[in-house]
């Protein structure tokens, strides 16, 4: 198995963990699930970080955000049929229902006044009436990865 094939298999294991356990797995958990050594999974994680597949924890190869899912806790939490998820930002949190193929309810706060905001999103990206709610993006997309933790 070459690196690309190995990384695909690891990515599938990460996705399966999110879908079935509702959590982002550690390197050790993926290694155990796949019956592989930690070193080989760690190397795969490192390649995926280089390829911007996910955002690592600082000074680590462990996953902080396998976007749109974040280990959390954050101020962007999404409730689906039987789980609560965290998004790293509004864009990601709004994408959690889409990634799962389920309806979800995002709860967060207005970043200006702190008032609670609730947005229901269906699996197709539709939303209930939220006429005035807006999302502010403060970094140009071409600069997102310049300092991804700031973004």
């Amino acid at each position: 198995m070459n690196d690309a094939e190995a990384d695909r298999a690891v990515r599938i294991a990460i996705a399966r963990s999110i879908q079935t356990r509702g959590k982002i797995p550690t390197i050790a958990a993926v290694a155990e699930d796949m019956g592989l050594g930690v070193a080989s999974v760690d190397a795969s994680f490192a390649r995926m970080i280089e390829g911007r597949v996910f955002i690592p924890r600082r000074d680590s190869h462990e996953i902080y955000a396998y976007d749109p899912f974040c280990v959390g806790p954050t101020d962007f939490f999404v409730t689906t049929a039987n789980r609560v998820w965290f998004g790293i930002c509004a864009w990601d949190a709004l994408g959690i229902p889409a990634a799962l193929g389920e309806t979800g309810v995002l709860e967060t706060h207005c970043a200006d006044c702190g008032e609670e905001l609730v947005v229901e999103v269906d699996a197709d990206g539709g939303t209930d009436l939220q006429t005035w709610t807006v999302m502010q993006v403060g970094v140009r997309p071409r600069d997102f990865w310049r300092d991804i933790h700031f973004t």
Partner: protein
Amino acid sequence: MLLFRSEEHAKVWREKAKPPASSVLTIEQATGLAHAWYAKKLDPDWSRFTNEEAEAIFDDLGLDPTFWRLS
């Protein structure tokens, strides 16, 4: 990426926070972007969008190309 009760609240926040750049999306644009970006993330054959694919998504949603252009 933050949510605000309204454009007016986003404007007040911008004046205080002074972000390096700014684009404000309606909630419909935001959910459309999130869906297009992440609907296939857990699929076995998922891959990152090319710049051209990403820009096509931004264009389809009517996002300002001066902010959203990647190249």
